[in-house]
């Protein structure tokens, strides 16, 4: 068993090396695919994180209370709001808490707020929605409750952001699928050449009683090795690129969206296993496709 695997591995490297022009070309092509794929992956992940962020920030209804509304009245309102469909949570935010949040959001500019003598912010109830669609109804209902001064709900804006982000993600998914298919074709072509180049040898192997796996093992591994090497190169390159990107664009992104780019370390960790899985998958599937088409299982024409 071990000897079998070692033999296959040795043969795989030998054929890959003999065929080095083609092996290098396909490693190059798949690496390029994976790099483009990585960029789209970074884009999708960032967009989806940003969207979640926006949903959290704006996918809430702020119900501002009149100054004379008491805490008990507010508690009753919360109870009745929580009973409505589409409400995930409702919590009481005092004007002091609201000010704290404000300061946090302004970050280094928060000192400007220190100049204020009085806290101008009202007490409020913050409703977190479990489904954005019910937002309008909940907002109107909340506005009609006694003791409510005003209601703020950015339904349209949030809806737009979600729409845009969905479009971006769908587009990216299509590009990613396309790239994976192209990579599959590249690998299977490489293996096809290996099969063609070794036709006589394979025929001879059959004559002397080689099992299918003895013949296929090396080619299967050749595909996987090509996939893994491409994955390794793309992981390194895309990690460097993303880290650089965060260094140079991170500041602007923050100013633009008031959210930072997804942490490089987190992304790279995920990229590593995703790309290796992808590389192995592409290599394995690509060679299987080729072997199915060009390696006759029985019969004389191999």
């Amino acid at each position: 068993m071990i000897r079998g695997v070692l033999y296959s591995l040795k043969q795989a490297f030998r054929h890959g090396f003999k065929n080095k022009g083609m092996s290098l070309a396909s490693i190059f092509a798949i690496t390029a695919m994976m790099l483009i794929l990585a960029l789209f992956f970074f884009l999708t992940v960032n967009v989806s994180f940003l969207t979640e962020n926006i949903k959290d920030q704006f996918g809430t209804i702020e119900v501002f209370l009149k100054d004379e509304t008491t805490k008990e009245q507010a508690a009753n309102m919360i109870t009745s709001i929580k009973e409505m469909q589409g409400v995930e949570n409702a919590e009481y935010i005092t004007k002091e808490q609201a000010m704290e949040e404000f300061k946090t959001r302004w970050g280094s500019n928060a000192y400007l707020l220190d100049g204020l003598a009085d806290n101008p912010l009202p007490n409020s109830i913050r409703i977190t929605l479990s489904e954005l669609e019910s937002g309008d109804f909940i907002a109107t209902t909340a506005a009609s409750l006694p003791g409510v001064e005003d209601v703020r709900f950015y339904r349209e804006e949030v809806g737009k952001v979600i729409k845009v982000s969905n479009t971006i993600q769908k587009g990216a998914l299509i590009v990613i699928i396309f790239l994976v298919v192209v990579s599959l074709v590249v690998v299977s072509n490489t293996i096809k050449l290996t099969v063609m180049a070794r036709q006589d040898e394979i025929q001879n192997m059959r004559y002397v009683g080689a099992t299918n796996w003895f013949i296929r093992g090396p080619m299967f591994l050749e595909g996987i090795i090509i996939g893994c090497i491409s994955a390794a190169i793309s992981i390194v390159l895309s990690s460097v690129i993303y880290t650089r990107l965060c260094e140079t664009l991170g500041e602007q992104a923050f100013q633009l969206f008031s959210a930072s780019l997804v942490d490089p370390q987190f992304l790279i960790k995920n990229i590593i296993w995703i790309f290796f899985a992808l590389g192995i998958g592409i290599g394995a599937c690509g060679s299987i496709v080729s072997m199915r088409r060009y390696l006759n299982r029985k019969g004389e024409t191999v």
Partner: protein
Amino acid sequence: MIDFKNVTKVYADTVALKNATLHIDQGDFVFVVGPTGSGKSTFIKLISKLIEPDEGEVYVEGKPLSKMSNRDVAFLRRDIGMVFQDFKLLDNKTVFDNVAFAMEVVRCSRRTIDRQVPQMLSVMGIEDKANNYPSELSAGEQQRVAIARAIINNPRIFIADEPTGNLDSDTAWEIMQLLELINKRGTTVVMVTHAKDIVKRMQKRVISIDEGTIIRDSRGGDYGFDD
């Protein structure tokens, strides 16, 4: 050992073998003769399941070939040494590696290979050619390499499709001596040939095929055709 039961093989519009039934004993030496296109190669390919019959069943050592999985067929072929008119050696491997190749396929250790291949080459009388490539050998020497490769794993059956077809008569006769030797070790030999003189001289069982039909099965080296 080898049994054909009502075996028919059809290609597009030619019936290459028609309702063939026969039995070959373990240790037998059998010639298969007949004109070109009569179905000799078809017959011999059926034994190692290089092709499959359209009707009937081929049995080797009692086992029906149609019931065998791919893996079983691989193991069946380890028990059948095969040699062809055109040798089918690998041009980019040395004589040694061409023979060693058959042992690698059955996963022999390097040590066994290094010990047994030179032995086999010297039995075949080509021990001094171990490091040559097939293109550097004469036709007779190439066929010896092919035979060495076919029998290195001690098969119980040896089948040869016109092994002397490309050889002059002296060389052909030397090859026949090797086949006789293989047969003496207990290996069943089935050989397709056109060479009337060889068949007459060897005095073995002769199966004659014409247009896909077995027309004669006799002992004593009677070629059975006038050509």
